[in-house]
């Protein structure tokens, strides 16, 4: 940001009026192009490092078995997953990623719903806020994911009525658990965001707390909930992947990562395909949240960043 550029923006009148959505789409498109450029640079650097590693000693192994060429990685997608199997590595990764996506999404929805509920309770009852918020905030600073193996362990041994708790539920629970906290904090801040003046206005209309919630607090909280949704979604994805590893859940991308990592000496490129799968999973979830973001903020004025 050059100083001159910032100064010259002081036009007295005359803001460009283009459709908000079209502008967002264009900005998103430009960002995507830059992101692709960034990825391209990473690919080039990868091959460059491999090439240099051929004659300069590097602190890490640059051989083809540990650092396959980028094209080898792509080739591996087409190879059969297991000797003699019909499905390719790519098939396996896609179905595993899809399965994880379902679990992550399920966990995300549950976590968000519970988080919102808790935020409403904390906003309404001061005791709830004072008593619970410190724990909610503290839980964002501690590695709750450490509980993942234990939750799976408990889950394997309990029955809720006729329903047998499977490891799938454990994974979803962990994802929900991690998604819940950032959303609670963000939602609470949002529900408390309306200005004193707006609240006085509602009070002058004899609005009930329920009406205040629906007509004032919830709409005001959208700008706070949206960034929290992103964090929650990311947390749900990470939680799902890690939980799958701890739980030994077959069919998820986490398990696939471990499996292919074990096969790295014989088939080095497979694990990279699995990593791509995990990355695409994360990006997909981010894209879904962005779509939700655009929808939720469609009527709000667009902010400009300094």
């Amino acid at each position: 940001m050059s100083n001159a550029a910032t100064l010259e923006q002081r036009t007295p009148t005359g803001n460009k009026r283009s459709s908000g959505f079209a502008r967002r789409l264009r900005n998103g498109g430009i960002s995507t192009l830059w992101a692709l450029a960034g990825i391209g640079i990473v690919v080039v650097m990868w091959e460059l490092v491999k090439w240099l590693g051929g004659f300069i000693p590097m602190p890490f192994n640059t051989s083809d078995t540990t650092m396959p060429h980028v094209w080898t990685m792509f080739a591996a997608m087409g190879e059969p997953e297991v000797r003699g199997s019909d499905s390719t590595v790519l098939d396996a990764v896609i179905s595993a990623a899809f399965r994880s996506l379902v679990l992550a999404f399920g966990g995300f929805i549950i976590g968000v719903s519970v988080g919102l509920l808790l935020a409403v309770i904390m906003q309404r009852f001061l005791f709830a806020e004072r008593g619970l918020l410190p724990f909610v905030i503290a839980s964002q600073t501690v590695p709750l994911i450490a509980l993942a193996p234990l939750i799976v362990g408990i889950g394997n041994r309990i029955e809720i009525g006729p329903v047998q708790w499977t490891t799938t539920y454990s994974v979803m629970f962990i994802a929900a658990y991690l998604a819940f906290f950032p959303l609670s904090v963000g939602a609470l801040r949002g529900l408390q965001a309306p200005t004193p003046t707006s609240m006085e206005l509602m009070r002058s209309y004899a609005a009930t707390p329920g009406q205040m919630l629906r007509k004032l607090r919830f709409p005001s909280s959208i700008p706070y909930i949206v960034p929290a949704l992103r964090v929650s979604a990311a947390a749900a994805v990470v939680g799902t992947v890690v939980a799958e590893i701890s739980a030994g859940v077959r069919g998820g991308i986490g398990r696939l990562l471990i499996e292919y990592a074990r096969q790295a000496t014989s088939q080095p490129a497979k694990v990279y395909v699995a990593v791509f799968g995990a990355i695409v999973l994360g990006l997909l979830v981010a894209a879904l949240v962005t779509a939700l973001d655009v929808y939720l903020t469609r009527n709000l004025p667009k902010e400009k960043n300094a």
Partner: protein
Amino acid sequence: MTTATTQHAVNASGVWKIFNEGQPNEVTALQDVDLTVDTGEFISLIGPSGCGKSTLLRVIADLTDATRGQMSVAGVTPHEAREKQLYGMAFQQAALFDWRTVRRNVELPLELQGWDSGKRKARALELLEMVQLADFAEHRPWELSGGMQQRVAIARSLAVDPPLLLMDEPFGALDEMTRERMQNELLRIRQDTGKSIVFVTHSIPEAVYLSDRVVVMSPRPGRITDIVDIPLGMDRDEDTREADAFYESVTAVREALRGHVGGSAQRAKIGEV
């Protein structure tokens, strides 16, 4: 080309400022502005939003370029004036740095000029004395009220002792009582230092109270429509605010803003600023 230009604090001739020239959203912020500010004069620029007063100030300060025309500041180009620090500037926001003490904020221009720390400190304290904030030298900006922060900003603008002060609605964010006190302070500083001042404001009484001449501007396109002489002399004080001559000048400026000079043959429609 007269040698008299070296005696003018500011000399603008045929200055235009056009934003987005040639494009559909082109805006003429300044049209053919001619203005001369004598050394030691206090000039106010007043007018409604979009009349170009802030833009003109920024052209003088070399914070933006004129599209066309000539401008000299203290006898040199605006760019040179900025490089040689021939002016000090104060804005509507005090723009103090939260991480520095009041004194270190005032020292900032001196630091950038390479003064050594002992001399900087002495000069900063001297300036804070001048705005009667010497006791707050080691305080932090947020501990001061809005008016006090602006006084610090003014002290900072005087740091390198420039012959010219440029001020962009510095009292705009203050309440009326504080505002009047600050105006008195500014007059006192001016009397003590004899500096030339170009002052942008929205307030008619403020412009009249402070200035030797009031430059009236109007928008679309931004231009000078009138210059009103203020015959209130050099010695002004609280009583001046209640003198007949003050009210006459205020009326003169108000009518100039409405679009006619001198008498009141027609009344402009309400809303047509």
